[in-house]
């Protein structure tokens, strides 16, 4: 088994220390950082996403896999930067105002990172102004908005409306997710896409950017 195949396997198993060890081994063997990312981490996280969608694994296993991938990425990132490798897109993500839930948002963020995106986390309880400030500062391709509560899902619309009112809406794709949301609701409030789970979020983000 090649080091990258072994890496995929250990990302899926959520074996953090082994993933870090294998990342170092791959670098030591002279593999290009981009190859380690695209043939090690990305397919590993794709398997994780597929297994999650097929109910073979659940949130705890997904969290473990994402953490393992993140640990490996931490080691790999300086080499990617040095080699001038750009992420496939930049994303600002956050949970809307009044909502303190972050597990879903964090999972989506980790899956997106595993899918090759750069992710800027706005945290929880984020106001429309905070999202606008982060977008102006970082110029992302996509804004991801999350809400877990029926009482806070209306805040997503407020963010989208604020972007429209401030002439920022045309410059960015907006995707939304969270337990009370539906595809119909996302269309109604003017989002560009809705993702029912963290795994689909990666596919949707790629689709929105035509990747």
């Amino acid at each position, binding site marked *: 088994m090649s080091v990258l195949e072994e890496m995929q396997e250990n990302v899926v198993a959520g074996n953090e220390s082994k993933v870090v060890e294998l990342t170092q081994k791959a670098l030591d063997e002279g593999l290009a950082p981009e190859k380690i990312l695209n043939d090690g981490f990305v397919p590993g996280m794709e398997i994780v996403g597929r297994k999650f969608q097929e*109910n073979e694994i*659940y949130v*705890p296993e997904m*969290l473990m896999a994402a*953490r393992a991938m993140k640990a490996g990425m931490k080691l790999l990132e300086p080499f990617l930067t040095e080699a001038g490798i750009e992420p496939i897109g930049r994303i600002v993500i956050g949970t809307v105002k009044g909502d*303190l*839930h*972050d597990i879903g948002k964090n999972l989506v963020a980790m899956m997106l990172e595993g899918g090759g995106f750069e992710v800027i986390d706005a945290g929880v309880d984020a106001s429309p102004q905070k999202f606008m400030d982060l977008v102006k500062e970082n110029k992302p391709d996509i804004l991801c908005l999350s809400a877990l509560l029926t009482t806070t899902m209306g805040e997503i619309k407020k963010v989208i409306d604020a972007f429209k009112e401030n002439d920022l809406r045309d410059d960015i794709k907006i995707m939304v997710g969270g337990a009370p949301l539906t595809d*119909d609701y996302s269309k109604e409030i003017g989002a560009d896409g809705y993702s029912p789970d963290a795994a689909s979020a990666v596919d949707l983000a790629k689709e929105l950017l035509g990747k």
Partner: protein
Amino acid sequence: MGKLIDLANSFYSENKRLVAPLLGFPGVKLAGSSIKLAQQNHKEHFKVVSSLVGKFSPDIQFVLMDLSVEANALGLNTIFPPNESATVLKKNKEFCLDDLSLLRDVEFDSDGRLLSYVRTVKLMKHEFPSDVKVGAYVSGPYTLTGLIVGAQEAGLMVAREPDKLEKICTFTTECIVKYTKLLLSAGVDTVCVLEPSGVMLGPSHFRKFSAVNVKEIVEICHRGNVDCVYHVCGNSMHLIEEMVQSGVDALSLDSKDNNVNLLEVANNVPKKIVIIGNMSPTKTIIYGNPEEVKSEVRDLLELMDRFSNYVLSTGCDLPLETPLDNISAFMQTGRNYVVSSGN
């Protein structure tokens, strides 16, 4: 008061349905109160739920849904926005087992806010018409654990530190059992275990960290001849068998928008288990008009027509902004529906 399954069967034999939406927060509007006030003051709380019984006459009236009661009673930092349910703030430091011994020292069942819920139940039982079942919620063992250690941390513990997690779940179960006993002594008819975080687990982990512990809550309820309901938000289809094995009397399930197939559940669970659900609480009943609500409720009743063990309800708690006319339409459609395959 009789068991829920007997009541459901009895209604069915008369070609009727029990109608019991998960209804609390809209009562705040009706009573001119606020969620913050009602969740801290038992007389205000009673005023809110009374207004709902007065206007809608549901077959079961629950207290306000509040997942922070037990966590708050354990001293966790909780915020009270005026018109949102109380929320437990996330801990910034990692939870260790020494923290558990500190929590054990807390006189959990002397907490003022927890006791205000008990007092509300007592008032409901005393003042409501005898044909309205009085319901109360308790947090699920895994959900309460998630509030103590952090939801994401609990998820990671499932895989990394299952023994530690099990110890914390055992502790949270002890707390929930204490609370359940107080609710029983206040006269509650139905205890509903809210386990929203459980939906993130696979069946074996759900069994280990939730269902096995819920069994203890069920036993306490059954000793007092009280029904115990298991409520898991979201798509709980992979957990139905584990929920049934806990010995609960009823399953309260989320809407089809979350891919819950109520018909499939009803076809597969024993007939002695009551199925409660599952109109979406976030779509038509909030954004639609009464006619649209009626049509959706009729579809649901027709779908479940041949099951005597079915109670018409919502998939989860109705939000504060739910139009009262839509709740009336829901109730009215449920009351007027004539079961075609009853007697």
